């Protein structure tokens, strides 16, 4: 099943001026456990998905109280620098939709 069918919220947003953070939140506990236990989402996998070095994934945590998985990617330049494409970092999450969760 695709992640977009299991999660109720998949979002991205600035976390400070140098990072974009991604939240995958399931309303349903069983869906969350399925995503969590599949192990498909991990630091290396999200680095590969977005084509960045693993070192740029500064945080990867499973946040049980919110049925959520959260990770953070360091920007190459601070938000709002010249050439900026997404000032708030709000439209970087879409590639997560199609991640296959067994």
């Amino acid at each position: 099943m695709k992640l977009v069918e299991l999660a109720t919220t998949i979002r991205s947003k600035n976390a400070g001026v140098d990072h974009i953070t991604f939240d995958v939140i399931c309303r349903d506990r069983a869906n969350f456990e399925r995503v969590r236990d599949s192990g498909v989402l991990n630091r290396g996998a999200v680095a590969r998905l977005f084509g960045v070095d693993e070192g740029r994934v500064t945080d990867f945590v499973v946040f049980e109280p919110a049925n959520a998985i959260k990770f953070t990617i360091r920007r190459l330049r601070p938000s709002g620098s010249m050439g900026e494409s997404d000032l708030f970092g709000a439209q970087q999450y879409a590639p997560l939709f199609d991640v296959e969760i067994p």
Partner: protein
Amino acid sequence: MKTVRIITPTGHLGTTPLEKASFERGCAASPDFIVADSGSADIGPYPLGADRAACDEVWQRHDLEHMLLAGRRLRIPLIIGSASDTGTDRGVDQYVRLIREIAAEHRLGPFRLAKIYSEIPVDEVRRRLKDGAVVRGLNGRPDCDAATLDRTDRIVSVMGTEPIRDVLREGVDVVIAGRSSDCAIFAAPLLEAGHSLADAFFCGKAMECASFCGEPFMGKETILGRVDGTGVYLTAIHPEQRCTPASVASHAMYERLNPFREYVPGGYLDMSKCSYEQVDPKTTRVTGQTFVASPSTWIKLEGSGKVAERALFITGIRDPYTIANLDRVIGWARAKLTERFGPVGGTYNVFYHVYGKNAVMEALEPTPATAPLEVGIVVEVTCDDMARAETICHIAGKNLFYARLPDVKGTAGTAAIMSDEVLHARPAYEWTLNHVMEVADPRELFRTQLETIGA
């Protein structure tokens, strides 16, 4: 321990107007304080660097008017943090002017106002650096040195609770604070009432974006926070919204590197052991938060500096052959710039934002583009000199119209020009400081003035 109730109607005062109905309901819930944050670093480095508001004064005034009138009617203090987006001295002075105007217009009786300035001259940081202060880069940034400051036009220091607690103790009715830690403006009155650092900062953390901590998703609706010594209680006021364990916990992780820690001057809030429980249909109680004090006090500095002037040109392409060969077209246009103006990245820069292809995600885009029906291209040029930026930008855009491709059918123009003009954009700034500086006293970078407003 005294129960303290706080309402907040907006997560960023001034962006769009607060919703009056839930705010009035919140006012009817016997609040002790009205609190709102009005700033953010999310808006990019331009407002701080150029010292301009990001929000429209019409909405800033609208929200301040509702909140001031409610505060005076209920005889409870109003606390505003990070005045006018940047929290610079300009922002504080602008909000104090608006408060004066609103008070005069409504003939409000006399009340006491505190303004707390948080701007710090670049030379003051330079002096401290020379005297041996460490200005440490946050989250992987290098520490600040003289060169960092040379690139910086303006700096704000981010206050914790201390300067706000001081003026609350003076019995002021309105606090207009410069750049402030979002959660500190909520925590200050809770700490004054004797509540724990953990509950005070957690309450602030949960409330700083107002109704974003409730569900379903709504902005600009009022949230009520209550702290009574048995936990932090968050209640959604809008009839259709609820604060649930899921909504409050998801908000705890919003806009942060990780969901477990919130740093403030003097330590951090640890949220890793929080538990969330629904206590009534609209209210969630949070317990288990702790505060870990640090042995030294570090104040966050935000700095921004101007990099270059900036110009934009907008165009679009419909021809499928040109779209299929867009990289060649842009490559050719860039080559023409290099030929006339020297290498890109030398004395100027050019960015082709190709909407329809990968303008949004750029290098982070993993999905191969499928050919779109149309693409829109925004050409961005930066350069020290505005006239030159304009010249370069016009050619950078017009060369998409003259693109050379061997089999192109449309030989009368290879791009749809929306308007044959170069748009003057705001100058390019960059975040130069996202650092912390050690201080002896958490008050030492902030300046407070009290005044009486009203007849």
